[in-house]
């Protein structure tokens, strides 16, 4: 009894318990959670029209909106959901009750069973599944030529914009380099991961340059690609419009922006033709008037913006034209910011029509969700059985539960802590990460064995030359050297292979770090209490 008290009042053990508590909160498990989670909402769908919001992809899984019932029919899982929706007829009313709110939807005429939700079974923890475990498409793209940091930023924005416009919001678009910056240039790649999309969708969207079109009164004037040869983003031809500046309209501030673009001669001709018969509209207080039809910009056949054309462009085949627009806000600052954001967004869209650099698809992986979910249940099984095997070996070698059980608990704590960190930083677990976790526990047990052996030997030999502290210090010397070697081995993996093995390296490094600094010192303290005193 006294031993338990001493164990739980030891400060190192308390540290472990506190960290475990944080991990628990971070993971937020709820195995009994029922319902289907809303992963995204389609544009112009019944759901969006009823006011359902598209969830942020970075939000923690357990905080996302869950559909609990449809027309008072409880929805516990995907089967219930699809079972209900497949019976829907057109123009029916559906009452959707979610964990956050209730909505009233009206089904569409065509395909009434599609309410506009992309759903999945409700998550039971905050752990995010990587593509390997939930299915989807992963694409690795490489620019066909050298790109500067600015161009890379532009590429990333363009890709995200395209994917968002298409309606895919559960996406990751990042740059990956295959070596750290200070080692020299290396190759730059763009990694796009989209959960739940098919390969065709993705190849169409980002493998091709994208369908951008500008129309005046339904006549196509210029398209992305060859028609726009240049979009200005530098200070001398873009920014706040000096002719209009900022001013108040009603109760709020409005600022105007402008930037120039260059059209190909053919596109310029078309623009001249389209504008020559339009009327001019003048506004009081503005020096220049503008034409009666705006320039409408379409990305993949959805209108993304509508711009006014300055009157002096009417009928002229001008290759350099100014695009203008504005932004608003409650203060001048807000209006300025909004205006520049709008300008940037527009530039991106125009530039998206003609990607600055051709992108090559160097790798596409399509991972089936069926295989993915099998991997998860298999991984859990594997984890349990592996731990069981390790404990068995320990019992055979040491023949005492007093040793095997603390080792088991220490290893389990390490796993739990790494998972807690993963949930906290919102990092996606993939297969390689799970492998790394198992390995770090399997070999991490080594450190505990070293500690135990130092403790046991003291009992066997008659010599009592070294006291307890000395022994533990020596055990930890070996442990720290081993730790340093493992970290040294894993660091290159954070970068190699375009970072695709990062998950493996990270779980291994985190597992070892949590072990060496948090759980194993506590283990040493527990061993001291349980064994060290039996003399």
């Amino acid at each position, binding site marked *: 009894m006294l031993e338990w008290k001493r164990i739980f009042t030891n400060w190192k053990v308390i540290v472990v318990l506190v960290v475990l508590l944080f991990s628990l909160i971070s993971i937020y498990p709820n195995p009994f959670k029922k319902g289907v989670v809303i992963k995204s909402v389609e544009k112009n769908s019944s759901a969006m029209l009823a006011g359902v919001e598209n969830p942020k992809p970075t939000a923690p899984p357990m905080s996302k909106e869950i559909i609990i019932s449809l027309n008072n029919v409880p929805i516990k899982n995907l089967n219930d959901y699809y079972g209900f929706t497949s019976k829907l007829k057109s123009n029916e009313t559906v009452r959707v009750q979610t964990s956050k709110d209730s909505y009233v939807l009206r089904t569409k005429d065509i395909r009434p069973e599609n309410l506009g939700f992309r759903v999945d079974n409700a998550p039971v923890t905050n752990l995010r599944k990587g593509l390997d475990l939930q299915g989807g498409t992963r694409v690795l793209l490489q620019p066909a030529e050298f790109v500067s940091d600015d161009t890379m930023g532009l590429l990333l924005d363009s890709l995200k914009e395209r994917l968002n416009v298409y309606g895919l919001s559960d996406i990751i678009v990042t740059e990956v380099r295959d070596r750290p910056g200070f080692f020299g240039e290396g190759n730059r790649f763009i990694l796009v991961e989209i959960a739940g999309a098919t390969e065709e969708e993705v190849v169409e969207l980002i493998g091709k340059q994208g369908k951008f079109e500008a129309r005046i009164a339904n006549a196509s004037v210029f398209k992305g690609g060859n028609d726009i040869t240049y979009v200005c983003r530098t200070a001398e031809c873009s920014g706040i419009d000096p002719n209009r500046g900022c001013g108040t309209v009603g109760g709020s501030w409005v600022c105007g922006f402008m930037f120039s673009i260059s059209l190909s001669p053919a596109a310029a001709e078309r623009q001249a033709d389209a504008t020559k018969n339009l009327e001019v509209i003048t506004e009081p207080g503005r020096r220049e008037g503008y034409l009666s039809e705006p320039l409408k910009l379409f990305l993949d056949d959805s209108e993304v913006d509508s711009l006014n054309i300055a009157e002096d462009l009417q009928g002229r085949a001008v290759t350099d034209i100014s695009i203008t627009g504005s932004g608003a806000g409650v203060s001048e600052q807000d209006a300025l910011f909004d205006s520049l954001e709008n300008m940037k967004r527009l530039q991106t869209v125009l530039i998206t029509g003609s990607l600055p650099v051709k992108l090559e698809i160097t*790798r596409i992986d399509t991972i089936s969700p069926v295989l993915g979910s099998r991997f998860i249940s298999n991984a859990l099984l594997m984890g349990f*059985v592996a731990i069981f095997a390790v404990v068995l070996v320990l019992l055979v070698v040491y023949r005492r539960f007093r040793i095997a059980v603390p080792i088991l608990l220490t290893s389990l704590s390490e796993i739990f802590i790494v998972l807690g960190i993963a949930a906290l930083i919102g990092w996606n677990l993939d297969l390689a990460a799970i492998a790394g976790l198992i390995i770090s526990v399997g070999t991490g047990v080594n450190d505990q064995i070293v500690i135990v052996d130092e403790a046991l030997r003291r009992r066997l030999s008659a010599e009592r030359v070294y006291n307890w502290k000395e022994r533990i210090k020596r055990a930890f010397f070996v442990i720290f050297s081993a730790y340093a070697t493992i970290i040294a081995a894993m660091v290159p*993996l954070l*970068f190699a292979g375009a970072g695709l093995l990062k998950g493996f390296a990270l779980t291994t490094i985190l597992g070892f770090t949590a072990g060496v600094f948090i759980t194993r010192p506590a283990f040493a303290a527990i061993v001291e209490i349980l064994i060290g005193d039996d003399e």
Partner: protein
Amino acid sequence: MSLKQSLIYIYDKKYKQLLFLSLLLLLTCAGFLVFKFLTTGEFVSRGVSLKGGITMTIPAETFVDVHELQSFLSNKFPNADISVRSLTEAGRLSALIVEAADVDEDSLITAISSQGIVLERGKFSIENMGSSLGENFFRQTVFAVLIAFVFMSLVVYATFRAVIPSLFVMLAAFSDIVSTLAVVSFIGMKLSTAGIAAFLMLIGYSVDTDILLTTKVYKRREGSELERLFSAVKTGMTMTATALAAVVVAYFVTDADVIKQIMFILMVGLIFDVVYTWVQNVGILRWYMGRGN
């Protein structure tokens, strides 16, 4: 004689023979790799993730003859370097893995479907990697292994602050890698990026056990050298036994190809580690410390 006494006897008197045997083992493995390189141009066969191509993972419920499928596909696409293998989960067939270079996706899918295997979009996985990216990954991951080796040597030297024992430790790690690579190459396993990650893990692990051994024998002073040696062996064996238990179990239970390859390499590497740490490194240390007398 008890186990302890017989082991001590072996270490005391016979260490030279053991050392010789372990060096012989190393040379055989290295020799095989060189032979393979001279005849095929590479040390080890590379899978799709290291040279480019397509990998398909098809869940399979009913029995499929993998050899038949492989010969059919190889005949259809003679330049494509096709391999088909099965993935088992605890003994039961769970999936087929088809790897192919120089074939386009659609032709491959059509060919496989024509053999009566159901391919439903969304049920199978397909990874398509360009060959220049694959080459790139291969060079990088090999480079990563070299960097790890260098870092490791620095850490080992910092631990012992003596050049010679550090060299012995690195030799044991090097032998471990070379032998494991030879086995992987010999059975024709196709190395993937995950496999290289396993090798990195192995370097770390085998240096781990060597540091344990060398610290106990070289740096400590209590008891006789042989006693220290024996206690180091006992601790080290327990460590390897638990690691092996985890890895072997994971190898048999998993149904993910990536994990299977990692676990297989670790399994082989851990077994070799027993030889190279507890025979080769011991023998060398014994000799090194003995010659001063």
